[in-house]
């Protein structure tokens, strides 16, 4: 699946998107898997309450299942308007 990062999540991880091969069942599982990879991921995901996630471009919860999902995006709370 494609994993996208925006705003300071993108800056902390150091790239805007990447292809990830994973068996993670939920968003939380994917976060744990990425965080275990490298310090920059662990830093970006240190406080999940400060993050939002979208699955296939729809806002979702961190306990949402990833089955069939093609695009996961992580970002801080939005500041539009």
């Amino acid at each position, binding site marked *: 699946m494609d994993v996208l990062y*925006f705003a300071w999540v993108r800056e902390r991880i150091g790239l805007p998107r990447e292809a990830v091969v994973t068996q993670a069942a939920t968003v939380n599982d994917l976060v744990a898997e990425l965080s275990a990879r490298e310090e920059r991921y662990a830093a970006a995901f240190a406080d999940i309450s400060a993050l939002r996630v979208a699955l296939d471009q*729809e806002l979702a919860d961190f306990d949402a299942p990833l089955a069939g999902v093609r695009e996961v*995006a992580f970002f*801080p709370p*939005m*500041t539009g308007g």
Partner: protein
Amino acid sequence: MRISVQSDAFDLGAETAGFAAGHRDIGAIVTFTGIVRDLPDDAMEAMEIEHYPGMTVKAIRAMAEEAAARFTLGDVLVIHRYGRLHPGEMIMMVATAARHRRDAFEAATYLMDYLKSRAPFWKREVSASGAAWVASTDADEAALARWQR
């Protein structure tokens, strides 16, 4: 209903006039315009607005459709810019048209409350002393809570 996410500036007067034209059953149009505001203690060089291209228009369209379902609306227009903007520049506008003013006002407020914290935009303020991402506020979430039913 028109949703535009664009880097280019827009002409508020022309957009509002175009939106208002050609309706015979509309008694009220409300517009809101968001403008880049300078920082209180530190001259802002620019406001950089990032967005999620695949999601932004879809998310705003869903908000506009929800507004049309909640209020009696004739039409909705949302324009939101991204990229590098400067103090005094217009960031975005919302216009709502309805038979009666209450629906137009309420729908515009509803859309602004949702755009503020549910449309995938992120603002970064750049000044001589550095750059900082704008944080969301509890007030933004509280504004949404009053629409939840």
